[in-house]
Every structure is written in structure tokens, then in C-alpha cells.
């Protein structure tokens, strides 16, 4: 079970949260002006990143708020979380901080 830092409530277990898919996909202001391909891309096309990935979470069984997170999809470690509307911060890679190396 992941530990997720809600920017409003702090560190909480995964079961308090719901997943919201890729972050920073703003709904176009005037969808009617888009051609079919552009609209289809907005609706369905998502990146499938190996590594740090900006995604949405909602603290559904807590404060109820949506927020964004950067998670390394190869390790499931969160590099950091931030509030909806804020630009994606630069996070240090998680591996340099808490994970020990075995002595050889």
C-alpha cells in the first residue's frame, strides 16, 4: 500500500485516495472549435511514462481534494505532491534520498 502525501492533510495510506489519471491535461476552453483528431487526442491519448509521471490523485476519504503528484512508475515512489493549479515542481529523484545500497 502506497503512502501518499496529501498537500492539505499530510501522509496518508493509499486506501484513502482515488486515482485520477494523467495530470496537467486541461479541458480545452472551446471544444467546439477543435477538429476531431485534436478532441480525440484530448479524450483518449495518455502518456505511458516509464519513470517520473505527473498524475492526479484525490484524497476522497479525507479532505476530498484533488491534487497532483509525481510518481516514479518504475518504483512506485512519489517524488512529491503539489496542489492543483500549481506548475509541476522539479523534484529530486527518490533513489538518492532514502534507499540504501548494499555494500559490496
Amino acid at each position, binding site marked *: 500500500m502506497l503512502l501518499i502525501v496529501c498537500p492539505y492533510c499530510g501522509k496518508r495510506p493509499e486506501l484513502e485516495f482515488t486515482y485520477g489519471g494523467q495530470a496537467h491535461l486541461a479541458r480545452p476552453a472551446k471544444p467546439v472549435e*477543435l477538429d*476531431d483528431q485534436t478532441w480525440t487526442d484530448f*479524450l483518449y491519448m495518455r502518456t505511458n511514462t516509464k519513470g517520473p509521471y505527473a498524475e492526479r490523485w484525490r484524497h476522497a476519504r479525507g479532505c476530498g481534494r484533488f491534487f497532483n503528484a509525481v510518481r516514479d512508475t518504475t518504483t*512506485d515512489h512519489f517524488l512529491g505532491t503539489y496542489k492543483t*493549479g500549481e506548475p509541476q515542481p522539479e523534484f529530486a529523484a527518490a533513489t538518492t534520498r532514502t*534507499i*540504501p*545500497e*548494499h555494500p559490496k
Partner: protein
Amino acid sequence: MSSRSASDDLRSVNGGQPTSNGALPTASALGTASNDFRTTTGGRIDRSQALRFTFDGTAYAGFAGDTLASALLANGVHLVGRSFKYHRPRGILAAGSEEPNALVTVIRDTARYTPNLRATQVELYDGLCAESQNRWPSLRHDVGRVNDLLARFFPAGFYYKTFMWPKKAWKAVYEPIIRRAAGLGQAPTLPDPDRYAQRYAHCDVLVVGAGPAGIAAALAAADSGARVVLCDEQAEFGGSLLGDGAARIDGDSGLEWVEKSLAALKLNNRVTLLARTTAFGYFPHNLIGLNERLSDHLTQPTRGLPRERLWQVRARAVVLATGAIERPLVFPGNDRPGILLAGAGQTYLNRYGVRVGNQVVVVTATDAAYQAALDLHAAGVIVAAVADTRQSPSGVLPEAARRAGIDVIPASTVLGTKGDLRVRSIALGKLTNGTVRAAQNFDCDAVLMSGGFTPSVHLFSQSRGKLEWSEALQAFIPGQSAENERSAGACRGVYGLAEALADGAAAGAAAGAPTGAAVGTATGPAAGAAAGATVGTAAAPAAARKPGPARRLVVEAPLRGNDAYLGALPAATPPSKHKSFVDWQHDVTTKDLALATREGFQSIEHVKRYTTTGMATDQGKTSNLNAMAIVAQKLDVAIPRVGLTTFRMPYTPVTFGSFAGISRGDLFDPVRTTPTHAWAAAHGAVFENVALWKRARYFPRAGEDMHAAVARECLAVRNACGIFDASTLGKIEVVGADAAEFMNRLYINSWTGLGIGRSRYGILCRDDGFIYDDGVVARTAADRFHVTTTTGGAPRVLAMMEDYRQTEWPDLKVWLTSTTEQWAVIAVQGPNSRRVLEDLVGIDISAAAMPHMSVGRGFICGTSMLLFRVSFTGELGFEVNVPADFGAAVWEAIYAAGQKHGMVEYGTETMHVLRAEKGYIIVGQDTDGTVTPDDAGLTWAIGKTKTDFVGKRSLERASMKASNRKQLVGLRSRSGTVLEEGAQVAAKAGQQPPMELIGHVTSSYASSVLGYPIALALVAGGRAKVGQTLYVPMPGRDLEVEVTSPVFYDPTGARING
């Protein structure tokens, strides 16, 4: 340790014959008389506490501290099971949780019937009753044994090749027979009567495994002030030291060191010690699942004591000290009862005081097995020979063996074994210049084997740590960790006792350091560097990894080296001519692996699935590396190239009860009931589950079935009036200055023009244009909407609303509140409904004052009321909303008042029929996530002047407007048959599969008011087909149906506006 002489032992079997041909003692007396293979002293058993037990109905005796396996061996019983596929007789192979053969059923009472337990982990209690599995009629005389003779019909992947003809026979004949023949134990037939507890815990350092490395780690971590949890799957802490009589630590015996260490840990109230606790799974962010077994070992479990406790431990740092598992050697006939791992033989002797035989041959590729030989020799067992696969074994242990007079035979291999229910003899071979020739044969009643050790990297791998291949150790060992985790001791290839203690202490100290941070600079003992050739004192600085405690341990233990043998021993015949087992539990032989590679399988993941090697409940603990090595050899590639299979939780099987905890029966899922639930139950309602709700489905009267009750209820609503509990509908209050704008953007309808005190049928689409939910929405103030949703859709609609509110339109001044449970909703429907209510409510509800889709406020029975003039039946109707606490009282008042107007109570089934007669859809029944508003005939609801709403752009796509989309229509069955919901619709009759199908039935009922069955269906281009005849193909016939409008009853809507 026993000091019995060899001659003592010989007397106990068959008048002095040193070999046993499977003559098993069957003594049944309580006591130790039958414990012929028990030493007189030594071991961790309590000889003052004799325990009775039965195995397959035969009574035996053991001692407190025994496992079922050790007690059976003490009684000379090696045959404990039949193998999975070939039904070969099998004995106990190991002494721990890696045991692949000795799976037994333990029966405490009729309900407490636990199959597939490893006898090596079943602690003996007085009166224990165990049975073997996968045999009939008995273990010794098993009919399934014929499979062994028919083995050529069951090669790897046989189920893909044989038994394929005739095709139909697979399901009916072959599969049931094969499933019955290849098996594990039977599932219990009664509900589990036991209680299972669950607990969450946090700690600084979790240490998994309480062998020398784990105990050292826990001591070091505790010394740094950390909160420590130390767990071990065994009843006793000590790990390898429990079965090792030779080691000395700081002048104490190994066990004395364990006792002193545990005493120190017990005094520390920041340390939690969990015995009988298996760390079965490593989950992200250092959450470890532990399964603690609390009562299975007790003769009479205390009432109320949980059987097991599931721990979910979130650890800041984890130290894995999970040890290593000895590898069997792969040679012809290596699976006979009496053939054990060398370390197991040593453990049974030193820990349980049990000799695995009277005359033993040791086959080994390592120095470690010599310790077993020496210990057995000292205990008076005849060690006929140590057959060593190496050219010139010269370590201190081999030398000690030679000095003790044991015949050490180098450059050996095994050509075969004999013995039916117990090994009787072993034929050795000699390997000279790459060729195998026959050598000596030895009579024996036990064989001990050792191919070296496989580090237990299961949990490390589960944590997503990267494994590395160590050429020096011939093993996969932990490389880069993925979590704050350290492996220590044998589980990372640090085998020597001194080195393991130092490694554990260093790991514990680093893990316990307040930062918990990585220590990148210090170096520990190099894996593999401990290989040494002298028995000696290795003074290991415990602080090899700084920072660490100042404790230094002086360790005396013979160095065992790191030699290893992977794969099959050189054989004199090709794999097809003999059975050399690789995976004992799934009966996979070298022949099967050779076949798989010959047929083109190259990845170990594919070989595994084709041959099922490593796929049994033991997950290949003893077999995986040998299988990989054999495949690598066949493919002529290095072992790492073959790849490693994925380790998955659980490490050993965990009971369902442990996972379920208290979430059983009534506590499995919350039950939501409406304010009128008790009334409905008292009036004989039959309930149905809708999401988590219990809803009254119908109210049968004496002698009525559902059909009769629903017909009566429907007619009463159409002709008089009915009362229905609609409280389960979701209700969301949308409030704020921008509430109307929010609703405009979200719902397809236009809300700007909706007056206060008016309501509208709203439809919510997703941005893909498909219907997501629907419900009546009332405007109760300029800035306030009362939105209703479907019963099951309430949570997801609110979540969707919140998503758009928070992330797309945070500038809108609007707030959302779920009010579903605040309101009781009492639907009063039917031509008499106004008459019923007008005496109860204090407001004018005449047709002029309260037209269809209007909303009024008032009081009923003294409580505030929100009154909707609304109908889901097509009749004149109202929905009385009152605070939930008053729901039952108001319901009863309305019901009483309604009696003189012919009112009946009705349930969801009648509601479904009435709405279908009117062609009203139910989202999720008549829609399925691919239905647009237009498909459902609801284009009229779309706000035409809006430039955007959620879903609008998608509805503009050409394919969403195509005329051949599936559209909602009515179907009238010409034969008078009620169609089956879900049935397909075809344009042509008499088709054979594959048919051309153009739609499906979504709703279907008998209509009592119309006198004929009705159905709703989604049919391609359906609206243009009204009047046409279509067909609903059913087994053996096509039902003829006429396409109609979905509105069957009162198409002009005269009644609803009455």
C-alpha cells in the same frame, strides 16, 4: 547430542539389519517406546512432555517441541504423501517452510480441517490428527500410482497435446479425472469457525528472520534506540543455530547466545518479538504483511483467542535476514522417501533429537553437508559414505570427516536409487574425464544431499529490488534496493556464521540510525570472501558497516565455503531414461525441462509455464535454480541469460481467514437501509440489493408469487395509487452564485431558464458523449439546485462533479454536498395520489397550483417537506421529501390516509415495469456506457443554445450521429412470450451461428395494464424500423417481435398531467 553407539541403533531395526526396506514401526502406545529413531538426549524437545498424535489413523507419540515431521521421523515414518502427478511415494525432504512433499491435512474437528500444511511447520500438540493427501485408498497402496507407469502419456504440457480427442471429452471426461488425480488436499466443507485478528503497526526497523543475522540486526537496531519488530516464521528464534551444535559465540554455545540475546531484546520495551510469524509479502513503501499463527499449535486453544493475526507493518527501514535454502541434488530416483536435504538431517538430529536413519549415505557438492555427516556419525548413525561431486574435497570439514573414519569418495555422481516406499540403496557413479561409469552401491535407509544454498531473496525481489547474479556464489543475490531495505546474512550470500553476525549487526545499526539513511562509504564483508579452508576462529568486527555498536563477537564455527552445484548431476543415461526430479511438488523432471527446450521454449518464464516447474505452492523454493541451470545448460547460455522468474507473495500460503479478518458475514460489506425498512420488512417485503442498499422489491400477499404481486401492484398504481420508497436515489445539493452556470456546463440540459420551484429531467454525459447518469433536478432557490441521481451512481456523480469543480472550473463559486441520507423520499403515484396528499400537506397541490415538474415547500405531519410533482410511472405523482428521521412516521401517515383511496405499497420490480411501460430508461440497464442521449431518444433534453457542455463536442462527431447507431425502441413479442433481458435481436430468421445481430433486449416485463409482454431494446437504426418484424433467436426457435415506440402506455402523456 546423543552418545548412543552404532550398535545400540542397529538393535532397533529388524534384528540388526542395518538397512531398512521400508518396514515402518507401527507402535501405538503412548510414550517413547516407538520413538526408535529418537536420541536419548539432546535437542530442543521436552522429553518430559510426551504427546499423542495420529497420522492416517495410526497412533504415534512425540514430544513437546516436535513438529509433525520430526515426530514422524522419530517413529521411523518417512512416507508421508504421494506426489502431485505421478503419485510417487514421497517422504520429508526438508525441515522448514521450503518443504515440497510433506503436505498434510490437520483435522482438529469437523470444521477445523486444514489441508496442505507442511508437516515440517505443523507443531505437535497432544491429540493432533493428521492425514496424508492425494492417495486412494491408502498412502501405502495408492491406485494413482499407475500414473507413474503411464508417465510417458503425461510429459510436460501434456494437457496441450494428449487427451485432445474427441474434443468434447476434455471438459466432460479428461479434465475432471485429471483434476481429481492430480491434487492437493480437500477443502473444508464447513464455514471457518475461527476468529482472525488484524493489526496495523509502525516501527523504525522491521527485521525479518531471527537467525543469527536477524538477531544481531535487531540487537544493533535496538541499541540505537529504534522501535524494532523482529519476526520469524518458526516457533523458536535462532534460525540455523537451532540445528547447529558446533558453533560458539563469545564463548557460549550458539543457543546460549540466542537465549541471552532474546533476553536482552525482551527487556527493551521498544522491541516487539513475533514468533510463528511469516513475513509473506513486501508491499510498496515498506509495508510488510505478517501472518502470525496464534493457536494452531495449542492442544486446547483458549476460547476467544484468534487463530491468526494479520499484521500490516509500516517500517521506516527493513532488514531482511531470511537466510538461505539448501538445494537438492538432481539425480535419478532422488525423490524416494528417506532422501533428505543434508541440513534437514542435521536439524532433525540436533534440534529434535531424531536420526533420519540408521545407515546414511551423504551426497554433496559442498563442505556444509560434512557437518551433517559428522554430527550423525557422532550420534551413532552409520555414515556409509560421503559421495562428493568435487574432484578433491579438501576443506576442514572433509578432513574432519576423514579423520572420523568416514569414507569420503570424490568425483562422485549418483546413477540411481532403489527402494519402494523408502530408499533402500544408492548406486554411485564415478566421473572420470567427463565420462560416468558405475561405481559402488551402498545399502542405506536414508540419503542426505546438498547442492549448496540458495539465498532467500523472495521478499527482496517482491520489494522490486534488483537481483544480481554472483558467479562466485552461483546464486542470485540482492543488488540495488528499491526501498529503505537491507539484506543481511545468508539471504545475500553471506553464509559464514561470523560474517552473518557481523553483517546483521551492521545492517541493524545502519537501519536503526535516526536518519535511516543509506551508508555509502563503509564496506562490509565481501560476499564470497568468507570462503576458507581452515576450521578456526573468525573474529568478526560487528561494526564492519559504520556506524555500528562497539560490540565485537568472537565466533568459533567451522568454515563451510561457498561451493555450489546447479543443475543435474552427470548421469549415465539420457534424461528420457530415468526420473531425476527438479521440482518435487509439481513432479517436474530433467526430462520435462529438456523437452521444453527442445520444443523451443527459451525464457525461463515460458519453460516454467509449460512444465509448471516452480509453480506449485512452494513456488520452487528448492527447485528454481536447478531448473534454470538445466535450461541454461540445454540452451548453452549463462544462467543469468535464462532469466529469473518473478517472486510473488505470499512466501508461504496464507489462510483466507487471515486476509478476511472480521470482514465476514454481516461485516463483509456495509448494508444501507431506508427509513421505511422496518415497515417494509413487517409488511412482508422481499428485498433486493441495489448497490449497498436493501430495497423492497415487491410485497407479496398470501399465495402470491412475484409475478402475481407485481401485476397487482402495477394495476393498483395505474387505477388508484401506490406508495414507494425512493429514498435511495442519490441527492446532491449544488449551491452558490455560479450554481446554474456549473449545471449548464455539466449537464446536457439548459438550466438558466429553469424557474425557482421548478424541476427538469437532467442527463449527465461524460466528455465522450455517452450517458453517465440521469435524474430530476429541482431549482429550489436562485443559487441552489437539488440534484437527484441514480441509486448506484450517487458517489461517482459527486466525484465527477468535484473533479470538474476543483480542477477545470475552480473559478466558479459553487459548493457540492451529498444529502442522500438526509432525505426520506416517499413516492405517491397514481390517479388518486393528489387526493391522498391534499389532506396531509398544508399547501395547494391542485393541477393549477402544482403542475407536473413543479416543486413546493410545506409541512407534512408537522415536519418540513420538499414536495415534488414528479412521476416515474407515467401517472399523476408526487415525491414527498422529509428529513430522514421522520420518514417512517410520514410514510405510515400517508399509507393510512391512502387506504380509503385504494393505496398499495409497491417495490422496485413494479417501479421497473411501470417506467418501462412509459419507455423511461434506467441508466445502466437500458444504457451501457455506449449510448448517447440521441440513442436513448432524449435529444429533446439537450440545451440547444449552449455552446458547450460536458459531452457536447463528442456528440458532434459524425459517428455519433450515424443513423445506424443502436437506438432505443420497444419490442412487442408476437408470440406473447416475455423476452429474456440480454437476448440478441436479428433482422433475419433462421440464422445459424455466427449470426448477424443488430441489437439486444435491455428490459422485458409482462405488462398487466396492457395485457401483453413489453420490452425495450437497443437496435441498430431502430427508430426507422418501427413497424417492422425482427427476430430474437433463442435455443431452437426464433421469437418474432414487432418494433414499436418505446412508449407503450399513454403515449400522449394525458395521465401524467392530470
